[in-house]
């Protein structure tokens, strides 16, 4: 007696974490500890990118929390044959101004003209934990999972590092490190590319009833954690109060992360793209934009999915007709 399943344990842990988050963020609600899907609200009116600090507190906390999960690749990593390149960030572990396998969150800064004023906006970026994540759905090895509570988590022991998840993510979030993972045990020269890394919303922590590290570390309370419905409601209230804008509610078919901004996200996106274009290697991954209303990669395939379910029924009817017709012909 007294034993509970792993899932139930995690569910209870997350419920406790949500309750903790609710208490810390000053939200009082009886619904918080029910184990329902969780989400985050990132209030861009509060975030200042930890001005004056070399590295924002959320970034430092994330790096510290996940340091044991960071990849330790082999020496002399081979190229992705027949190509003469491979993706290695292990000598750039210090980078905190983009997403890498060693940096799962970072803060972008833009200055945007809005209503005749220049507004400075700092935007913490990481995985949005989408409602119907194409990254997890389209992984050819099912190495990614959308947890019932909301976080999208990569299993580094299964991931082959093909980086398809990054290609189908509207923000190109997952970051690849070569020279680590399962592919090394199969045919490292010919197949696979390493392991993909990204934010898992501190799934281990929230399963133990703790807050995500970034939420706990933010000195401004700019990142809030709680029941998803509640977070969205708060985001809408805040947006209404400041005559602002929400990002993440509709993008990619819906996410668990809601940004509230005093300036339109179209302007933020434009500035981010301009920054990216000026980078040393503009094509390098890990510096996402904020395309407003971006669709889900699966929208079109899901539109024809009904055809796949109807096809067997249609096949049965057509066969029945053909069989009876030919049998009649043979009797004549």
């Amino acid at each position, binding site marked *: 007696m007294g034993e509970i399943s792993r899932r139930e344990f995690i569910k209870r842990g997350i419920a406790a974490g949500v309750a903790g988050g609710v208490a810390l963020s000053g939200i009082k609600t009886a619904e918080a500890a029910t184990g329902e899907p969780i989400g985050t609200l990132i209030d861009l009116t509060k975030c200042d990118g930890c001005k004056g600090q070399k590295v924002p507190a959320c970034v430092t906390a994330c790096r510290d929390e996940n340091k044991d999960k960071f990849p330790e690749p082999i020496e002399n990593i081979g190229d*992705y044959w027949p*190509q003469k390149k491979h993706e290695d960030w292990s000598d750039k572990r210090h980078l905190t101004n983009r997403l890498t396998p060693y940096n799962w969150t970072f803060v972008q800064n833009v200055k945007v003209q809005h209503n005749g004023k220049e507004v400075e906006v700092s935007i913490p970026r990481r995985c949005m934990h989408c409602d119907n994540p194409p990254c997890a759905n389209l992984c*050819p090895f099912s190495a990614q999972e959308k947890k019932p509570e909301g976080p999208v988590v990569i299993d580094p022991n299964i991931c082959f590092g093909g980086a*398809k998840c990054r290609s*189908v993510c509207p923000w190109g979030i997952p970051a690849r490190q070569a020279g680590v993972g399962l592919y090394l045990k199969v045919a490292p020269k010919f197949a696979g590319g390493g392991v993909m890394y990204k934010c898992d919303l501190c799934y281990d922590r929230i399963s133990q009833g703790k807050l995500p590290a970034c939420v706990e570390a933010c000195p401004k309370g700019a990142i809030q954690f709680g029941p998803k419905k509640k977070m969205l409601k708060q985001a809408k209230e805040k947006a209404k109060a400041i005559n602002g804008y929400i990002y993440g509610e509709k993008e990619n*078919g819906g996410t668990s992360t809601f940004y509230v901004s005093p300036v339109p996200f179209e302007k933020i996106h434009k500035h981010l793209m301009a920054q990216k274009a000026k980078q040393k290697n503009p094509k390098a991954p890990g510096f996402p934009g904020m395309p407003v209303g971006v669709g889900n990669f699966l929208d*079109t395939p899901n539109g024809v999915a009904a055809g796949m379910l109807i096809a067997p029924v249609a096949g049965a009817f057509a*066969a029945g007709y053909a069989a009876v017709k030919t049998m009649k012909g043979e009797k004549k």
Partner: protein
Amino acid sequence: MSSSNRKIKRHGFSVRFVHWTVAISTFLLIFSGFGQLPLYKRYMVDQLPLLGWTSNFGVTLMIHYIAAIALSFAVVYHIVFHVIRKEYDILPKRGDFKESVQIIMAMLGKGEEPENDKYLAEQRLAYAFIGVSLLLILVTGHIKVLKNLQTVTFPDSILGLATTLHNVATFMVLFGIIGHLAAFIFKENRALLPGIFTGEIDEEYAKKRHSKWYNRLNKQDRFNISG
């Protein structure tokens, strides 16, 4: 007209329709499926003329879905059609493994070939192998399609199993196809080829190599001989 030029009907329209629908859709599924791994960017297939689209997951996924619709239709059509008509000639029989060895040895010039029915023993075995592989791939593929819908979720354990079996079944189908095509390395089997294109094969060949089937047809008077 000499009897050596006479033809005998081996496959009706439905059989040929199913065979070619399965063949074409399976080719498209394998090609687009490997594109989902992903493979074509890595191996620079997308840099070959006219193949730039191969590394576009949106394009290869749509090809995969549409080809899967065709395959699902054809496989169910095949099962229902032959169950209604009570045609089970192609299902494996007891002793088919032993008989297959006998037939192959005979083709290599060792021993006598047994009397064959409509299908050779190794054809029946190959059918069963490819059939089971295709059913496995269809069931797991449908699970994978359903999980992509926003409203559908499966436990991670089922998804992991479906994904692994889908990948394993892909290689089973590939081996099956290679075996199927390898049968035509033997000259003795090549006379069957026209049957899957025109529906007809040489009567003399049927009489000689598929005597059980030929004699049964003879008794039932179900010849459809054209000159």
